[in-house]
């Protein structure tokens, strides 16, 4: 296709497969294209098969693509592992004949001696991935100059940088381009022509989470290294001091979340980021935050579970846990971004929710979203409004001791203030140390309005209702999900998290084929947007719920809550949905 191609590179971890792919994606994006990447990682540091796929298009792309149009195999194993994802009839297969000769089947094959070109022509074997990029450039685009610019900017920041290496890289690009132009006859239709440049940014989900946290004026981060969330910790370790914040690498996830609660009690907008095993360890403290009404944002970059599971693989299997973790009846909020732009804007929303409702907010990303690079309109990363927690004495919203804020000395009764005063919204004005003479004790024990331990039935009942009232208030106030697709759809798809793009592309394809389809993608999963979901369910005849998990966690939730009998489409191999898989589900129910 003109100006659209999906290229997959398969190789061995450590031989430049991923870095080569990164360079290709960045070069294409800077050249004016939309990009969307998908990659797999081995869990081990050195060795093991890995692959990088980038979908490049002059039109916006929402998913990784159903098939690779081009597959570059840097070894025989890469061919064996990836060939099933190469488009039948006309897919392009590129390999080095010194490695292996594939059984070509229905594909267009381009044998290219990557190893020889790097070893003999460039005389530096490490440039093999540059040879590969030169070949891609010569066959499909983008131009060698666009790639060279990215290589140059990357190398200039690298410690390995030296003039000879740079020269060799450039030579590798040219040698390969020359080889494919002179030695091969192009038989495929894929060509990336010049397009208009646009103001876009190119980043992955974890990077957008860090940007969102900084834009939220995060003041404290504590975390413990864990795949695939560590980038967030590393990003904030670097950035926080520059904006006046502080950072702590904790000794474990329990220390991470509890020090976050300590910092938040002190008034800092505070967060942690983790994945499954660490998230499990945070259960008890999440309950404390809910009970003592302390704001906190907890990012859970979901990975395939249970237990240690598959640390570098994608799954959407923490939803049930996020909604119910910690003992007792524990109100919490859950936000699930769908794409890289959401990782920014919903992160800001998550912080605002935590502060506004004085509640822990769980931010559910997943491994594929953490690592996938998208080109996003720059305007999606604009400054957003920051909300602070309601302070005692502010805007006339007081508990009992309203005189305390007026500057005169406090009587003995006044200086204990009603930290947990009953209010219509459930949100009680609070304070932080040093903000005035009023003090209180945060406790995980049931307490009265003053924060004093209290086990009376009336008190526990009223406090429980107050805490849950905040969720009802939030359900009214928070943004509602928007329907996508046909107004008169007969088939409805409800999804959550990073599958939105694939679902929307499937809806588009199905509509083009004449099906009447719509989708709804709630991004706030606690409190659920009841009305929007009920209306959507009522408006269609059949609901499909695609989820990357075994048990159908959203389907279970909507079944329990609305009596919905949905058609479940579950994928749980560790790899996200393609649009084609969802389209097939639509076709099957029609």
């Amino acid at each position, binding site marked *: 296709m003109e100006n659209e191609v999906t290229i997959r590179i398969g190789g061995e971890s450590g031989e430049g497969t991923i870095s080569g792919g990164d360079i290709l994606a960045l070069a294409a994006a*800077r050249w004016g294209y939309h990009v969307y990447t998908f990659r797999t990682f081995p869990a081990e540091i050195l060795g093991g098969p890995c692959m990088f796929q980038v979908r490049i298009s002059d039109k916006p792309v929402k998913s990784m693509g159903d098939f690779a149009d081009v597959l570059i195999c840097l070894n025989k194993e890469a061919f064996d592992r990836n060939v099933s994802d190469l488009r039948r009839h006309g897919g392009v297969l590129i390999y080095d004949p010194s490695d292996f000769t594939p059984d070509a089947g229905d594909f267009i094959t381009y044998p290219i001696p990557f190893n020889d070109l790097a070893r003999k022509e460039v005389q530096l074997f490490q440039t093999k991935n540059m040879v590969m990029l030169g070949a891609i450039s010569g066959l499909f685009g983008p131009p060698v100059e666009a790639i060279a610019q990215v290589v140059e900017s990357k190398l200039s920041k690298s410690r390995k940088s030296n003039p000879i290496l740079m020269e060799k890289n450039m030579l590798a690009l040219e040698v390969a381009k020359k080889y494919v132009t002179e030695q091969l006859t192009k038989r495929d239709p894929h060509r990336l022509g010049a397009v208009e440049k646009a*103001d*876009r*940014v*190119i980043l992955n989900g974890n*990077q957008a989470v860090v*940007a969102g946290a*900084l*834009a939220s004026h995060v003041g*404290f981060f*504590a975390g413990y290294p864990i795949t695939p969330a560590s980038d967030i910790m590393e990003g904030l370790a670097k950035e926080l*001091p*520059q*904006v*006046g*914040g*502080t950072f*702590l690498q*904790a*000794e474990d996830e*329990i*220390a*991470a979340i*509890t*020090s976050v*609660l*300590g*910092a*938040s*009690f*002190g*008034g800092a907008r*505070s967060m942690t980021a983790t994945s499954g095993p660490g998230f499990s360890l945070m259960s*008890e*403290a999440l309950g404390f935050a809910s009970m003592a009404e302390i704001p906190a944002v907890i990012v859970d970059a979901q990975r395939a579970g249970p237990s240690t599971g598959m640390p570098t693989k994608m799954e959407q299997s923490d939803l049930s846990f996020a909604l119910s973790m910690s003992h007792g009846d524990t109100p919490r909020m859950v936000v699930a971004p769908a794409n890289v732009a959401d990782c920014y804007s919903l992160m800001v929303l998550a912080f605002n929710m935590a502060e506004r409702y004085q509640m822990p907010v769980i931010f559910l990303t997943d491994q594929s979203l953490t690592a996938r690079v998208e080109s996003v309109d*720059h305007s999606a*990363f*604009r*400054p957003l409004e920051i909300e602070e927690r309601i302070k005692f004495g502010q805007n006339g919203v007081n508990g009992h001791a309203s005189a305390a804020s*007026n*500057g005169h*000395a*406090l009587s003995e009764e006044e*200086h*204990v203030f009603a930290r947990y005063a009953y209010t219509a919204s459930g949100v009680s004005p609070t304070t932080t*140390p*040093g*903000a*005035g*003479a*009023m*003090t*209180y*004790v*945060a*406790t*995980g*024990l049931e307490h009265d309005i003053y924060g*004093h*331990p209290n086990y009376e039935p009336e008190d526990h009942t009223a406090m429980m209702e107050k805490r849950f009232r905040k969720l009802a208030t939030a359900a009214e106030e928070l943004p509602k999900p928007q329907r996508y697709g046909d107004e008169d759809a007969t088939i409805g798809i409800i999804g959550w998290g990073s599958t939105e793009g694939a679902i929307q592309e499937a809806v588009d394809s199905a509509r083009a084929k004449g099906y009447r389809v719509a989708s709804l993608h709630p991004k706030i999963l606690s409190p659920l947007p009841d009305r929007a979901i009920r209306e959507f369910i009522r408006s269609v005849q059949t609901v499909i719920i695609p989820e990357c998990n075994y048990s159908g966690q959203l389907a279970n939730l909507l079944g329990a809550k609305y009596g919905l009998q949905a058609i479940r489409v579950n994928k749980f191999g560790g790899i996200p949905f393609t649009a084609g898989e969802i389209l097939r589900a639509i076709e099957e129910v029609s």
Partner: protein
Amino acid sequence: MSQVMTLTPKDYKSEVKPTWCPGCGDFGVLNAIYNSMAGMKLAPDQTVVVSGIGCSSRLPHFVQTFGFHSLHGRALPVAQGLKMARPDLTVVAVGGDGDLFSIGAGHLIHAALRNIDITVVAMDNETYGLTKGQTSPTSPTGHTTKSTPYGLLASQFNPIATALSLNVSFVARGFSSKPKELAALVEQGIKHKGFSFIHVLSPCPTFYNTMDVWKTTVTPIPADHDTRNRFKAMELSMETEKPFVGLFYQEERQTMDAAAHQLAQQTKPFDINTYMKRFT
């Protein structure tokens, strides 16, 4: 800012009445804390007493400052997070032997390494009081309880030796029946810039009454002890029959909270447009 002038120990007393049994050592510790706070004229709204779970961890409720009665074992991370975010505050963590040396023992190592400027008052009664008398890490070997009906088969934890081995920058021991000396140690600990660890012998009259034993065995650290000598301090810590009370060791060194805030001094207001340029 409205400010309550709190100068006497009574002003640090909250309206919540202690839940402890009569004769509990923790009353003495609480009084020492009131006295040390009054002695330093700590502003109640700029002071936070943090605790975990246990009899002694109820203490924040009885003090008229800010308080954070957290989870079992987690007083230290809460206190450290708070101090990192708010180095202007005085942060005191309190707890018992179960809280600090069993479920929360792991945090002690890292608090010591970071040397964040908080003060820990560890009230040790060598038993689990709140859950009615099971064995604790500081119970002596052979100790018979409902959870060790055949006698405790493990060794006894040595809090002072542990703190010294971790190079805690302020290590002291007090006794709840000597509240004046204890108040002085708490005050010294709060004034010390760094992680201060104060081990307090604080008997449980209900489940394991060590009051009479400690009253006869507790021994002041010799006046000529050099508190900069960690090896000598370690030697003193090994004396378990006649537990020494007083200041074992003190060293001034960099605190993580101060260092982190030093790093954060060149602060620019965050601007998303500038930040995003790196992704173009």
